[in-house]
């Protein structure tokens, strides 16, 4: 028996058969269960004030996601406004240099420059059905803030974006974009003044007026049903990628890589590949400058399960249960938690979680610029750096990267670091 997990649960699964059984439950949509759990992970750890809003969101989302009118509106806006489907591209030169066949899923070409728009559009359309009057969001790198601001402008909602003061400074171009798109940007001076403090502050706003506000959470974290909603809206990335690989390459990849902060791009990419046992999946965490506490944001690599921002999942924390400080050159990965489905996929060993250092990610930005003519965001550059390492002992394999965002927003930090 534990304080947070159901008594009956035998966890973690100890044999291959048990692990396969747990994966099968996820694939049959038995996870998340009625309490929002993936095995022991997930749940709804929020103040009582938010429970009615969360219950309403869960109920309305279930209706909308089975409603043809909603789905066709999502599909149509996805095509004409976001620019779906995004291309699959053969990274010719890097393939030759690294001795593998490397493909990029070009989410950097999605409207506003990252995968974040897929979820922002989905949740804003959903918010219309909830009858709320305003949208709030948090942002780290600014991509989710820009996507939310754009979707609110498109659909017609007032929007406030909470952004840590540190991130306001290091992602200045995105701050201006959000303002032009009509959003109010609220710099957060409390806490660690990055993404984590922005989520704390957005939750405080939501608690103040829960029934008139929709909190448009951008990462695969938070209380149920957020991790499920984000995965649902981001899974288009993996579904398209899988079909495009089969169509243009004629086979599935041997390995798929995606960066992981909270884990929205990774869960969207991985989920449609989970049943393909031949496809190895790698989530790449921010290794920062080293392994000591405070030098990185590698939650699964260095953390242990705990509760933050409404869910039970892996967490960087000290022995007294205080949330740990993080570092990453990339604002989008600079977060001490991770989505509960990732914790589950780690525990059943379906996804391997590894790290790339700040310096390796910066090298990968250079590699990608020079050889492929693409300035990638710092976040997927971590995954690209991991591919470079992995390729050394896996020559001749076919590898897919979720190139989940473009690097324009990183110009201030790249100019200081490169």
């Amino acid at each position, binding site marked *: *028996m*534990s*304080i*947070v*997990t*159901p*008594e009956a649960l035998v966890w973690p699964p100890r044999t291959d058969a048990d692990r396969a059984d747990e994966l099968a439950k996820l694939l049959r949509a038995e996870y998340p269960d009625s*309490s929002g759990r993936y095995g022991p992970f997930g*749940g*709804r*750890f*929020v*103040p*009582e*004030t938010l*429970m*009615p*809003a969360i219950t309403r969101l869960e109920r309305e989302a279930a209706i909308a996601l089975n409603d043809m009118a909603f789905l066709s509106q999502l599909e149509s806006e996805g095509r004409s406004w976001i620019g779906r489907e995004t291309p699959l591209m053969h990274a010719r030169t890097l393939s030759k240099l690294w001795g593998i066949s490397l493909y990029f899923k070009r989410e950097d070409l999605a409207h506003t420059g990252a995968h974040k728009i897929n979820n922002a559009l989905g949740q804003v359309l959903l918010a219309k059905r909830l009858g709320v009057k305003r949208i709030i969001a948090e942002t780290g790198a600014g991509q989710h803030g820009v996507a939310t601001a754009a979707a609110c402008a498109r659909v017609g909602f007032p929007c406030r974006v909470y952004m840590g003061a540190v991130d306001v400074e290091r992602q200045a171009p995105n701050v201006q974009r959000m303002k032009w798109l009509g959003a109010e940007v609220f710099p957060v001076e*409390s*806490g660690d003044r990055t993404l*984590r403090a922005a989520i*704390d502050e957005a*939750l*405080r706003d939501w*608690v*103040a*007026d*829960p*029934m008139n506000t929709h909190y448009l959470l951008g990462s695969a974290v938070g209380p149920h049903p957020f991790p499920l909603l984000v995965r649902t809206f981001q899974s288009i990335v993996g579904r398209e990628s899988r079909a495009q690989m089969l169509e243009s390459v004629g086979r599935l990849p041997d390995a798929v890589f995606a960066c992981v902060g909270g884990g929205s791009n990774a869960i969207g990419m991985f989920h449609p590949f989970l049943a393909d046992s031949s496809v190895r999946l790698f989530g790449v965490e921010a290794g920062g400058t080293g392994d000591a506490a405070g030098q990185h944001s590698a939650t699964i690599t260095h953390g242990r399960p*705990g*509760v*933050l*921002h*409404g869910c039970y999942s892996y*967490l960087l*924390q000290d*022995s*007294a*249960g*205080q*949330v740990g400080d993080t570092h990453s050159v990339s604002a989008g990965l600079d977060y001490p938690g991770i989505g509960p489905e990732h914790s589950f996929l780690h525990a059943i060993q379906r996804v391997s979680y590894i790290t790339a250092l700040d310096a390796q990610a910066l090298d990968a930005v250079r590699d990608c610029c020079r050889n492929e003519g693409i300035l990638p965001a710092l976040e997927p550059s971590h995954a690209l750096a991991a591919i470079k390492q992995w390729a050394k002992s896996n020559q001749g394999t076919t590898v897919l990267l979720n190139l989940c965002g473009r690097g324009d927003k990183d110009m201030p930090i790249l100019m200081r670091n490169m």
Partner: protein
Amino acid sequence: MHPITTSIRSFAARSAPALIPYVTAGFPTKAAFGEQLRALAPLAATIEVGVPFSDPMADGVTIQTSSRVALEQGVSLAWILDELSSLRGQLACPIAIMSYLNPLLSIRMEDLGPRLVSAGVSALIVPDLPLQESGPLRDILASQDPELGVVQMVTPVTPPDRRRQLANATTGFLYAVTSTGVTGGGRVPTQSQSSIADPSVIEYLASLRAISAAPVAAGFGIRTPEHVRALRPHADALIVGSALIEAIGRGEKPDAFLRHLTSEQ
């Protein structure tokens, strides 16, 4: 009867205002903690001891700041329980621990119940643990001591059937959050225009007292003697947190502030 319930009811019997002061343990210093408890206990119906947390999402600026200061002094749940154990028998009122869930998880599950009991804790208030997630914790506490339980919070947006569930499940008292928003008040745009005891709040508190066997304690935004006077007839106890922390931050004595709040009764 639960010791907190008994204590709150004894104030009503004396026609005295039942106050539940909240202190962030270790604010502004570790040394102040014991002094504060000793000073407050003779006046309080219960003391709510706040465990500082790095990410207090239900708290306003005041308790965010006091929590950060306490953490900088090295305050932890383990330290708090040790201090309470050493004060056991010296405090004239029951103690409730208010902690976010994650610090509770840092103590080994099988040790938590015994440590709470040896610290003399009568109940836990866990702001990020809604009723349907609280079963395992309640089982652990109950297996240690049938009276040791979780105080449930109710808010103005809680639907009627859920209010009843929460009232049935609570331990010691029912925590009636009087407004949506974080602790300390002041964030809600409408709150400045409406009185803390406007008709909707009074009706809300009356509806809770009608369904709750446990006393109903109102909290969030109670800051002045006027607030205490206005709300006192409508609740069994009043919780005072941020205003007390601010007074402590200004260097005032906590017991003097509590007397000030009840001075115009």
